[in-house]
């Protein structure tokens, strides 16, 4: 499917918004407003936006991976960023309109890396039983590719011909562990052959390349032809988590490596391509930037105004343990 002008602009806008929302949380941590962990996904925006925006249907299942705490995936699925921002600032979101993550087939990001592989199999089993052509898109990082769960899940998905698209966001680091020292092959996509499914490597900085490869994998799954694997080569600009060191093993990551990747920034690359082909003008870009800035300011204010959870009623936690 060739994307229309409006769709191209949407992809670009979503990437910009993903980056700025990620930046919002980083800044909020710096000013002491945000609480807890944050694993920035700066530099990797092309994978979630290219992979999810025009590839999935509303009732498909999606496992995002944890970088950027899945903000790109949420935006691509048409979810309001209000909850995302409020939760990171320790607030209770109010009056959030639009679909919930569950309504868009997102049942949570696994805190234990690699947990989503086998859960995806369960989703895909139900998709097959439902018989409505639903697909499960399971995104994961290069670190997760080392988990044994991947073998169990990919093998079973292939044996049972399940409708799953496995999409690896290979950013070359798993916490402080460089990919080259963690994986026996150069490409994770190579393992697809072991499970009798197609495996392709794409430029994870190129949003359209990601879109095309994921779309092909999703189409294959939807047609009943089983799973496939897409590996997107990308890079993270920040350290593993905010406030922690940015290192490879125990030394700072090589500056030249970081700089080389930043020269191929996914947003800059796409912007230049869109300018060159005349899809966007410089004025359009300014407008998108301005609108995003306004959105970020409004979201910050929104989160500031949302209430904190009420500590005088901790029994709410007891009531959450079990479903009725």
């Amino acid at each position, binding site marked *: 499917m060739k994307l229309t002008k409006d769709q191209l602009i949407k992809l670009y806008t979503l990437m910009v918004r993903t980056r700025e929302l990620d930046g919002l949380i980083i800044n909020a941590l710096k000013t002491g407003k945000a609480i807890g962990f944050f694993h920035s996904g700066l530099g990797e925006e092309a994978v979630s936006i290219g992979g999810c925006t025009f590839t999935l249907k509303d009732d498909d299942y999606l496992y995002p991976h944890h970088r950027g705490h899945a903000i790109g995936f949420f935006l691509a699925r048409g979810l309001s960023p209000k909850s995302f921002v409020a939760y990171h600032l320790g607030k209770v979101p109010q009056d959030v309109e639009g679909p919930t993550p569950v309504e868009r087939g997102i049942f949570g990001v*696994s805190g234990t890396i690699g947990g989503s592989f086998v859960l995806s199999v369960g*989703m895909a089993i139900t998709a097959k039983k439902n018989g409505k052509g639903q697909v499960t898109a399971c995104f994961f990082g290069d670190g997760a590719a080392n988990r044994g769960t991947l073998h*169990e899940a990919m093998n079973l998905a292939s044996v049972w011909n399940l409708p799953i698209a496995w999409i690896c966001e290979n950013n070359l680091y798993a916490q402080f562990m460089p990919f080259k020292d963690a994986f026996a092959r150069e490409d994770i996509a190579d393992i697809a052959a072991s499970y009798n499914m197609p495996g392709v490597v794409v430029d994870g900085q190129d949003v359209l390349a990601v879109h095309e490869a994921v779309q092909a994998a999703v189409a294959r799954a939807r047609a009943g032809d089983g799973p496939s694997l897409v590996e997107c080569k990308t890079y993270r600009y920040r350290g593993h988590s905010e406030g922690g060191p940015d290192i490879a093993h125990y030394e700072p990551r090589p500056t030249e490596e970081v700089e080389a990747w930043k020269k191929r920034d996914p947003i800059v690359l796409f912007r230049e391509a869109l300018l060159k082909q005349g899809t966007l003008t410089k004025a359009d870009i300014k407008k998108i930037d301005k609108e995003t800035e306004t959105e970020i300011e409004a979201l910050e204010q929104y989160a500031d105004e949302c209430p904190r959870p009420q500590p005088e009623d901790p029994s709410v936690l007891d*009531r959450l343990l*079990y479903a009725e």
Partner: protein
Amino acid sequence: MKQTIYLMAIREALDEEMERDEKVFIIGENVQQGTFGTTSTLVQKFGPERVMDTPLAETAVAGAAVGAAMAGFRPVADMMFADFMYIAGDEIMIKAAKWHFLHGGKVSVPLVLMAAMGGGMKIGAEHSMCPESIIMHTAGLKLAIPSTPYDAKGLLKTAIRDNNPVVFFYHKGLLGVPGEIPEEEYLVPFGQADVKREGSDVTVVATSRMVHLSLAVAEELKDKVSVEVIDPRTLEPLDIDTIIASVKKTGRVVVADEDNRRCGVTSEIGMQIMEKGFDYLDAPVQRVAAADLPIASGFMEEHILPQPKDIVAAIEAVAT
């Protein structure tokens, strides 16, 4: 009422619930044949799409059940041996147990993790465990451990209809135990202990196979001491009220379970009795449990697992 055995009662529960609700399916290793007979013949009736044989992949079995449950189905994952549930710790104790809570109640995980536990078959440390305490310890998992055919069928049906993850441990040493079940449909509710034998001198709180050993011991000692045997039937939720009411009557209590002694089920139940029934106690609570050792195989097993003589000794210790 009709006569049946423990494993047939389990199979009947699965059969009836699969018949009743097409969202129910069984997934596990060799469930079409059925290692313990509990799932046998169901594939002939419901087909391989609902009785799904998997490769040897416990993590995938449990994980697929969690995923399918969140997507609106009601899977029964047969983990075969309870020991094997350790392999799928993330899927069982983190995903199944916590994801309803972690998602603010917006996601439910209605699944049953079924497994055969316990010793008696002399098959060693990795096929004989009773890992009840680790399940009972994990917030978010319910735990049913039936001792009779009646309880097995009624509890499993309740488990399948529950909107939460339920671990259903059946004891492989009880598979052929006979008992009566109603002809008509019935359910056994969670959190209701059953007084298996009434008595007035000593309360024995016993689980699973220990219920049968305790009943035999109670009969043996009946001329000397009147023993009440209480089977909690579910450990989460635990019906501590029925236990305390019995302790109030007898003033003396023994807790018997096949899990390890240290931090085991007996520790928890004994401590709850201390917290809620201390004033009624005329003697310290006695525990009967497996030794804090891996379960030895072959004939050495009996030196690890609790034996009837241990229950006798514990009853005599509290009764005198």
